[in-house]
């Protein structure tokens, strides 16, 4: 009985020790992952730096800043022009094929 109890204790100890080793390994993997995460976070934030993006856009991509901003303003109270519809031509009794019906709509220009 005593031997059996001792055996159980020994097995328990072994399981605990094995768990401890696995935990240590996991802890180390976690640390490495955290370190990689920090490095990536840093890289992302450096890539997102406005100075880098603007510098790259203007220096390498040859983009230019707009100096004049024009924003057409359309009052919501201004009634929109009524659409002009072009009626479809009447079908010819001699033709065998039917042309597709087209509708032309004009919209006010200048809006956004």
């Amino acid at each position, binding site marked *: 009985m005593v031997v059996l109890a001792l055996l159980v204790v020994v097995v328990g100890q072994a399981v605990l020790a094995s768990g401890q080793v696995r935990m240590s390994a996991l802890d180390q993997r976690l640390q490495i992952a955290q370190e990689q995460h920090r490095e990536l976070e840093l890289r992302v934030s450096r890539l997102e730096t406005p100075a880098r993006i603007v510098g790259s856009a*203007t220096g390498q991509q040859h983009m230019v800043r707009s100096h004049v*901003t024009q924003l057409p303003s359309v009052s919501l109270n201004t009634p929109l022009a009524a659409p002009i519809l072009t009626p479809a031509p009447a079908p010819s009794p001699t033709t065998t094929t039917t042309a597709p019906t087209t509708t032309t709509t004009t919209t006010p220009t200048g809006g956004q």
Partner: protein
Amino acid sequence: MRIVLAACLFLLMARLVDVQILHSSSYQAAARGESTESIRLDSLRGGIYARDGSPLALSIPTDNVVADDFQVAHPVKTAEALAPLLNVPAATLAPELHRHSGYVVLARQLPESTGRKVLADAFPGITLADTSRRVVTNANLAEPVLGFTNSTGGAAGLEYAYNGLLAGTPGKETLVQSPSGVSLPQSDVTSLVSSRAGQGIELTLDTQLQYETEQALAQAVESSQALSGTAIVMDVKTGQILSMANLVSTHPKAPVTPTPPASSDASGGVIPIGPKDAVNEAPNNYAVTQLYEPGSVFKLVTFSAALQDGLINPNSIFTVPDQMTLDGSLFHDADPHPTEHLTATQILAQSSNIGTSIIAQGLGEQRLLAQVGNLGFGTPTGLDFPGESAGLVATAAQWEPTDMVSLPIGQVDAVNALQVLDAYNAVANGGTFVQPELVQATVNPSGTVNKTPASPTHRVFSPEVDSELTSMLEQVVSSGTGTSAIVPGYTVAGKTGTAQIPTTGKDAYTVGAYMASFVGFAPAVNPTFSTIVVLDRPTPIFGGTVAAPVFSQIMSYALHRYDIPTTPGAATQGATASTTPASSQAQDIT
């Protein structure tokens, strides 16, 4: 003889009781001190993040490689093995391993991956000490606001103000050591108190808007040869500071060189900001630490009090000469003009000093002083920023007769830029004053974000007075001294300021030295952002000429960035400084 022996025995017993019972704890502590060594375990400093969560300053864990040279049996071989890992020549390392000091730092702030390689090789007597390195991700962007750290922790700016939160709690490791001070190689750690990482702070700053604000301000500082410049953008409703730029010129008042347009700039449209460039970050946050006499932007005090008291309405007519004498002193408007009949709105739009002082005389000294306090001047802004000044405002005891003209036009009280913006933000916010905010949340080491409480508010104007003030300030931009502040597609309300600068140590103003400013908000109806721009000693001197265009540029970017709808009927073309000649533009001094 027996008596002597008994006495000796008694003394011995007494000493034993003293040592073993009465003072046992102190002797135990002394013994422990002789045989143990305590090592401080630094905690990882919390990060500082922008409003979108992107990092602005982070601490990266690093390792110092430390040698206990008493335990290094073969210094030359160990040095040769360590050299490629530490990237230090073996010839440099070998003498370090011969020092016989017991503690030699061989390399500092190495990446943790390198530290693990060193540990994996299990060199006898070589250990690692945890350290960290502070990394700023956006170069020197917003440096005066963020501050910096040194070996003791936060040394300036928010790094200093929030050091208690950011620093965390250091841990302690106690090891058994030999009498000569050498840590025993196989000794277990007798006690280990782990360090606790600091909390991070999430700011209200918008990185992109901060960058654009700094770029616009840098261009203005450089082209106007100003000594320094400050610009702040605030969210009207919440008081959150979206950008706070503080720049200084590294070669003020240098010979004039034409500044090319940003797009044709050699650096691709980017104005470089740094110690070796024409413009650099300011040594501290001038927006709250630098006091100046604000000039005409202070006319808000007089007009708001007069509207509140029913003394004027926007259409009240006053007879305004171009100069007046008070107590032996002559005061005049910026430009000579015949005696005119001006409405209160026109007085504000044209920034008439004489007209403003006529209105102020109707208010009286006590009412003026009370309104100065009501608008937050003379009290801290609530940011708790290190080095912040509450301002220098006149009291009733200090009142002089000429103050009846000087105070209403902003040439008595000294205030900081944020206080001026706060007052105008209250107008933008329907008459409700909202305390400015720079930190919107704290971030636990686990990443949990805890929002800080909303800023306290209090009403300073009635909605009716606020509406009248807004329409009067709109006139300043549409037809007065601030036409260069127009933002295409939006209505803008604001005020220009061109203030004289007192000479240090003298009761006089410096000839030719002015602070140029513009403060305002947009859209004028249901405003979203309020902004101030201040330039120290620019050329030309007028706020309407040098500060208002910067306001327009910054505000235009902010409104587009946040997709604020355009205002129907608003001007679609900006009146920039280049399109509006200074000679044809109304100007103000003070």
